[in-house]
């Protein structure tokens, strides 16, 4: 990206859930490059190889908390860490998520509950946990504090055998609009917007494609990648950094009048 190192988030503190992989990691890297201090969470143990290697690479402005976004006590630990280490928070990216595919009549209650727990409850708990700190901190930065909830193009349109994921991401979209209006009317200095990525090259996408291959939908993952590219007007998948650039835009003062908006980044997929 052209502006890496421009330091336009200097003095700001960000929290990113699901920050060890994919879009979350790209957001962490971009925020750090722009001068922010970042706390990231994920499921991995702090002494896991991935967490240690990633945090070593990210440097002193990043810190890590192992947290399951479905557990209130984990969010409380995350809040305590942010409060102790930084005392303020300006940017919250609720990115952690999972997928679920399959014919609707085959979905188990357990799998349905799991995706709702992670994709919907996880976003709700993140917002509930950090709203007081964002409200306290937002007035001190231009454009105010910013909540960025990662929905999906699957939160805008339906897709065969993706109904549970559709429902969870649709919930994130409208939850975001609800809190955006609520914060604005209460004069809280917090904006809230949703991101709607199309198909992005992430571990989650690779795992999902592998599951389809295992089910016999395609011979190998590349067949599915090619099919997704063919369905996308721009003819390619997104790089996670192309989502992080939108998160960065929403985090800063250039988006000061944007709240309750949905930023679709899908190479034209939903325009068709």
């Amino acid at each position, binding site marked *: *990206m*052209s*502006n890496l190192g*421009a330091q*336009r988030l200097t003095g700001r503190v960000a929290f990113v859930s699901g920050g060890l992989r994919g879009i979350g990691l790209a957001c962490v890297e971009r925020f750090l490059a722009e001068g922010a201090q970042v706390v990231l969470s994920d499921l991995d143990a702090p002494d896991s190889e991935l967490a240690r290697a990633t945090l070593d690479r990210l440097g002193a402005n990043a810190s890590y908390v192992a947290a399951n976004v479905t557990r209130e006590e984990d969010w409380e630990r995350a809040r305590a860490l942010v409060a102790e280490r930084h005392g303020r928070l300006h940017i919250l990216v609720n990115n952690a998520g999972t997928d679920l595919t399959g014919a609707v009549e085959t979905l188990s209650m357990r799998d349905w509950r799991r995706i709702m727990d992670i994709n919907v409850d996880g976003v709700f708990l993140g917002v509930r946990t950090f709203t007081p700190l964002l409200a306290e901190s937002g007035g001190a930065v231009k454009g105010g504090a910013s909540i960025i909830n990662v929905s999906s193009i699957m939160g805008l349109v339906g897709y065969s055998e993706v109904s549970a994921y559709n429902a969870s991401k649709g919930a994130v979209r*409208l939850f975001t*609009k*609800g809190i*955006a*209006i*609520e914060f*604005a*009317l209460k*004069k809280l200095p917090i904006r809230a917007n949703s991101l709607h990525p*199309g198909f992005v090259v992430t571990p989650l996408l690779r795992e999902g494609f592998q599951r389809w291959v295992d089910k016999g939908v395609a011979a190998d993952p590349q067949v599915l990648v090619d099919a997704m590219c063919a369905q*996308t*007007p*721009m*003819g390619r998948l*997104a*790089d996670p950094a*192309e*989502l992080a*650039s*939108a998160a*960065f*835009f929403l985090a800063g*003062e*250039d*988006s*000061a*009048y*944007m*709240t*309750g*908006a*949905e*930023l*679709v*980044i*899908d*190479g*034209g*997929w*939903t*325009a*068709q």
Partner: protein
Amino acid sequence: MENRLSGKVALVTGGTAGIGAGAVRRLAADGARVIFTGSNAAAAEVLAAETGARFLGHRVEDAAAWPGLMAAIARDHGRLDIAFANAGTEHGDASVEEIGIEGWNHVIAVNQTGVMLTVQHAIRAMKANPDGPTGAIIVNSSMNAHRAMGNFVAYSVSKAAVVALVKSAAVHCGNRGYRIRVNAVLPGVVETAMISNLIETATDPAAARAAYTGMSPLKRMARVEEVAGLVAWLASDEAAFVSGSEYVIDGATTAGMMGV
């Protein structure tokens, strides 16, 4: 932020006032070489002197004059990277019951046909860029694309139409393999000179101001610079995977009902 757009050539239609002038300032500040059009030569001269941008007198609805405009840009600047289809009007508009055919035709000519011509000529120019078909086109729609106004039928219709135009153009560019992105911005109420003038000349200016500021849950109008910031982002390589999108910038006005 400076020089994010350096080396890029940008065209802004209706650039002499309001959001267009804000975009001229912002794109120039970000390093782009900006050409802007319109019909208010006096205002254009001041803006050109301030920003270093170049003014070419042109009305977007004048189809016959488009080739000459684009030939001048190609000849003098060698490329086109950014087009902001901004020119718009509400002159002659009214409710569906009262609007005259002249008023309807005028608003549609500027807001709808003018935007189509801008997108069409921008794509043709961007196709000829030395490094292949690349560029970013941004259309200035309005939140009224989704929330129509009863007393401005032609404006509401035209702003909805250009969202579909944007999506069609984005899909077309993708189908042809052009690396040209096409997106719409949908501002809420923006505190432009036009709106300020409407407020000041109202029978009850205080009530008029309250009505405009009260439309958004944020209880304020957008500043021109805020819309220009979104336009500049969409124009930049930061938005490389964004095409066919419609981004509202309205302080949550269209996010839902305000509740009680």
